[in-house]
C-alpha cells in the first residue's frame, strides 16, 4: 500500500472539471484508490460524485491511499496529476 498527502491549491477546490479528469486518471489504474479528508471523510476516487461530495476546498490537505498490483506507478501518476491540475 502506498500513501501520500496533497494540499489542494485550486481556488475552487476539487471542482467539476478536474474531478472528472481525476476520476479518468484513477480509472486508468487497477489499484484501489481512496481519498480521505482531514475531517475523516473518505471516498473511492473512481466515483465522481462521492469525490465531489467531500467538498474539498483550496488549502485542504487530503490523504491519498493506493493499494493494488500497480500501486507504485499509480501513486506516482496520480500525485503528478494532482500537482498539475489541483
Amino acid at each position, binding site marked *: 500500500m502506498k500513501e501520500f498527502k496533497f494540499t489542494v*491549491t485550486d481556488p475552487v477546490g476539487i471542482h*467539476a472539471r478536474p*474531478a472528472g479528469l481525476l476520476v479518468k486518471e484513477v480509472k486508468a489504474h487497477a489499484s484501489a484508490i481512496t481519498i480521505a479528508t482531514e475531517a475523516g471523510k473518505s471516498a473511492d476516487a473512481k466515483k465522481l*460524485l*462521492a469525490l465531489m461530495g467531500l467538498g474539498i*476546498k483550496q488549502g485542504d490537505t487530503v490523504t491519498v491511499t493506493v493499494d493494488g498490483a500497480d500501486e507504485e506507478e499509480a501513486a506516482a501518476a496520480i500525485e503528478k496529476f494532482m500537482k498539475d491540475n489541483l
Partner: protein
Amino acid sequence: MQVATGISILNGIGIGKIRIYKTPEYKINESLVEDAIPELTRFENARLKVQAQQQVLYEKAVVEAGEDSAAIFQFHADMLDDDDLLDAVKTIIVDQKHTADYAAKHGFDNVATMFSEMDDPYFQARSADVIDVGNAVVEALLGIDTSSLQGTEPSILVAEDLAPSETVKLDKSLMLGMITREGSSNSHTAILARSMNLPALIQCKDIADDWDGKMAILDGYNSCVYIDPTPDLLESLTAKRNEDLKKEALLQELKGKTNTTIDGKTIHVYANIGGPADIGSVQQNDAEGVGLFRSEFVYLNSKEDPSEEQQFQAYKRVLETLAPKLIIIRTCDIGADKTIDYMNLDKEENPALGFRAVRICLTRKDFFKRQLRALLRASAYGNLGIMFPMIISKWEVRECKEILAECRRELENEGVKVSDNIQIGIMVETPAAVLCADELAEEVDFFSLGTNDLTQYTCAIDRQNAKLERFADTHHPAVLKAIQMTIDAGHRHNTWVGICGELGADLSLTETFLRMGVDELSVNAKSVLPLRKQIRSIDLSK
C-alpha cells in the same frame, strides 16, 4: 407600452415577438412494476442517449461559447458514468419495484440535495447541474421533446430560468434575445449568453405569461425590455440595432485575418485586460495576444495582501487558457492615488510623481518577490512577458531583473518548473525613459509606450482636470516625437516597440504609428477588430 427592467448581460438590442419558454410539467408514473428487467433496460437506454446528447452539447458549446464554458457538459456526461448514482437508481427499480422514470427522478434528486446542503457556494451550485441531467434523463424516458418549445419563428425567449443545457440546445438562429426571471451574472447561462453574443436580460422580476406573442424590444444598453413599444421607439431602436448588426458583420469578416496593410506590412494587435474575467473578450475579438494585463486587480480585489498562491492561480488561468498567445503581465502599478488599506501608503501631495509602481516594489522587496514568484511559476503554463512600469533609470531595470533572477533560482532549487522563454520589457511612460531609451533598450526585449502617463508627464497636464481641456492636446507634437524617438531607439537595439495606452486605439493615428515603425498596438478588446480594419485599409507605399 410596458417597461420592465433587469440586469443586462450584453450591450445589444433584440427586437421581435416574445415567446414564453416553459418546460412542460410531466407526470411521473408512481405505480409499481412487477418486472424490473424492462425498466433497467429503459433506464440504460435513456442514460446512453442523454450521455450522447451531452457530448453533442459539449461540442456545440465549444464552438459557440468556448472550451471553458463548455466544460460543464463534459461534467454532465461524466456524471452519467458515476457508479454510486447509477446504483442508487437501479436499487430503486429493483428493490422498490418502481418505474425507471420514478427511480431516475428520485435518484438524481437525492444527489442534488447532497450538493445543495454543502457549505461551499460552488458545490451548492452544482445541484443545478445534477437536476439538469436528471431532467434530461426523465425527458428521454418519457419521450418528451423540448426542441419544439422554441417554436419555428425568430423570437425573444422569456423563461423563469434556463439550465445551461437548455441554453445551448436552443437554436441560435431563432434567438433574438433572452430574458429570465432568475439567474445571476455569473451563472453558466449568463456566461453562455455573453459568449454567444446574445442580448440577454436576467433577474427581470416583472415577467408575465401574457407577454406571449407580444412585440417587444430588449434594450441591453439600458437594461430593460419594452413590451408593445410605441412606433417611435420601435423605429429609433430598430435603426440602432441595424447599425450594430452592420458593424458587427463587417468586423466578423475580419476574424482570423492578419493585421496587414495593403502594401504588406504586418504588425501585432493585442488586447489590454484587467483580469481572468476578460479572457472571453480576448478570444471573441480575435486579439493575437495580451499586450497589457493590469495586475492591479489582484491587489484591488483583495482585503489583504494577496498571497503568492492567489496570484499564481489568476496568472496561470489567463496564460493557460490563452496559450500559446503572448501574455504581457505588468507588475504591480499601484500608488498613492489608488488607496489600498493593507498597503499603508502615506497620503502624498503629488501622487502622480510619488511613491508608486516599481518604486514601491523596489522598496518593499518581499512584496515584489511574491508577485515575481507567482509570475515565474505561472510561466510554465503559457507564453509570458513581464513588464515593469514607471521606469526612469537603467539601474531600476537591472535591479528588477536581479530580483527576478533571484526568484528564479529559489524556485528552481525548490524543483518548480519555470519557463526559459520569458520576454522582459518596460513601460515607457516618462520623458526620462524616452530620453534614455537607447540605454534602457540594451536591457530589455520590448518597450511598451504608456501614452496616457507619457502625455501627462510630457505636457505637465492633468487629464482629469476639466479646466485644462483647452490646453490638453492628445496628439501633441511633443508626445508624437517622444513616440518616434522611443521606436527608433528600440530598433537600434533589436527591442520591439508597442503602444498600450489609449492612443493605440485612436484610428486617426494608426497610419502615423505604422509609418513610425511601431511593431505592436495593444488596445481594449472591443477595439481590436476596428483597428484591424483600419490597418488593412492603409497603404504605406503612397
